């Protein structure tokens, strides 16, 4: 024992012999973060992870009182909001953290895009990241229905109708999503199962892969920095990690303030035999798509406008996912204009349409 490193106690040594703590410690010590003028953007991945952990925690707490049926879902959330101590806080944190997580994720996506982080050898990191974004949007969409209120009901009717527009497989997909021909209690149970079991299981695997790849390849340095042969670095632990923690603390503060001052609303219980309420709208991250569907005319060149809209969204998504393979110059570690232009155009389009979605008169 005297030969062992004196800075570790007996417990550490006991554990080290059995699970290999020193290997882990070596791994942590090895990890470094490149320092350059774009280092700031590295924080958003960790931020997304932090907010995801909050989602897991608050989500598990909500499970203890939530009841996934058309007859009880709304009432059980009413119970959480009014009777359960701090129930309002747990639900509001879950709802706000979901929004902040999607926001952090978009920041992470667009910064990785603009800094060309997707280029060789990180194509799989990019692909797994886009998978995680898709899964997060699916989390948002399925979670939105669970309160079984008016907004949720119609958002789900519209959302599940959208794949239904596709020729041939559309009606089948719609039935598969809804668990029947209409949005009913069967849809609620299905979305609940997807939200609390299927998506978490898939996310665990893909997130594991994503984080593994980030460790394997290290942080990507943008081409401009790579060229300058500026090799400044900072150890990840504890230097960068502590900075990460400061960011997380800020996010937690913002989250607590939002949850306390703007607790999540519940609205009216869903009624499948009432008209859609005036001013109905989806979550903000679906707003640009929603507004596009609103503005598209019924027919464009003889094709139904809605079909063109859906195909357009699909195409943009596909370009985004396949970016590492479409950007040939990036493979040669050279910066190319079009992905940046594409990203800026996408951001500008989303901002304008989202703005219109929130400001245009709902009855005109």
């Amino acid at each position: 024992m005297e030969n062992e490193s004196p800075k570790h106690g007996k417990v550490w040594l006991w554990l080290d012999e059995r699970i290999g703590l020193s290997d882990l410690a070596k791994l942590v010590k090895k990890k470094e973060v490149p320092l350059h003028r774009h280092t700031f953007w590295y924080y958003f991945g960790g931020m997304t992870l932090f907010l995801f952990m909050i989602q897991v925690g608050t989500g598990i707490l909500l499970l203890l009182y939530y009841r996934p049926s058309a007859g009880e879902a709304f009432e059980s959330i009413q119970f959480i909001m009014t009777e359960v101590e701090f129930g309002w806080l747990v639900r509001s944190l879950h709802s706000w953290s979901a929004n902040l997580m999607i926001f952090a994720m978009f920041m992470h996506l667009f910064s990785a895009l603009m800094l060309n982080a997707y280029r060789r050898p990180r194509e799989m990191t990019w692909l797994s990241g886009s998978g995680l974004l898709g899964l997060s949007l699916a989390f948002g969409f399925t979670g939105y229905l669970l309160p079984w209120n008016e907004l949720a009901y119609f958002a789900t009717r519209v959302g599940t109708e959208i794949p239904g527009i596709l020729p041939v497989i559309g009606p089948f997909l719609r039935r598969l999503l809804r668990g029947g021909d209409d949005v009913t209690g069967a849809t609620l149970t299905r979305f609940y199962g997807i939200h609390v079991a299927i998506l978490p299981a898939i996310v665990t695997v893909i997130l594991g892969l994503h984080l593994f790849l980030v460790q394997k390849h290290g942080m990507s340095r943008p081409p401009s920095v790579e060229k300058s042969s500026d090799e400044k670095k900072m150890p990840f632990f504890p230097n960068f990690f502590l900075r990460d923690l400061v960011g997380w603390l800020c996010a937690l503060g913002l989250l607590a303030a939002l949850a306390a001052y703007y607790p999540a609303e519940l609205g009216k219980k869903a009624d499948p035999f009432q008209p859609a309420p005036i001013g109905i709208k989806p979550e903000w991250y679906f707003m640009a798509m929603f507004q596009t569907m609103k503005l598209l005319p019924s027919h464009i060149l003889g094709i139904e406008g809605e079909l063109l809209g859906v195909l357009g969204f699909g195409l943009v998504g596909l370009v985004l996912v396949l970016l590492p393979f479409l950007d040939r110059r990036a493979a040669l570690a050279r910066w190319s204009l079009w992905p940046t232009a594409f990203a800026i155009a996408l951001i500008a389009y989303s901002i304008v349409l989202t703005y219109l979605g929130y400001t245009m008169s709902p009855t005109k």
Partner: protein
Amino acid sequence: MAHEGSTAALDNGRRKFLNWFLSTTAGAFLISVTYPLSRYLIPPKVEESTASTVTLSIKPNDVKANTGQIFRFGSQPAILIKDTNGELKAFSAVCTHLACIVQYRSDISHIWCACHNGHFDLNGRNVEGPPPKPLEQFAVNVRADQIVVNKRG
């Protein structure tokens, strides 16, 4: 040498057979898992209400002119409208765009969908906004103080 060569050929044949046997078994196992799984995920057909006629609980004289209301037609929502001339009309209330439930706008005498701002006139025609098709119209008959709505054709 000749003996060794034939053993190798024999081994090779055995190897091929075993590989083939193993992979078909694995394939069959995979199918026996995925087939029931995929069938399980597809929701069973529920007997759809085939009602082609419905008698409303509301009396014709209780419906005010220039108003609309949702009623149940089988498992689907439908809308009953009394126009400014006092004529009763009924349509499917499911918007032909993205399946939201429409409402009657008395200020413009249109059937209107709040989701994506689709307008239909009182013949169910899609006159403004994104809906690609007209609403299905039903026949309304007043018999002995009762409103009876029928599917057409």
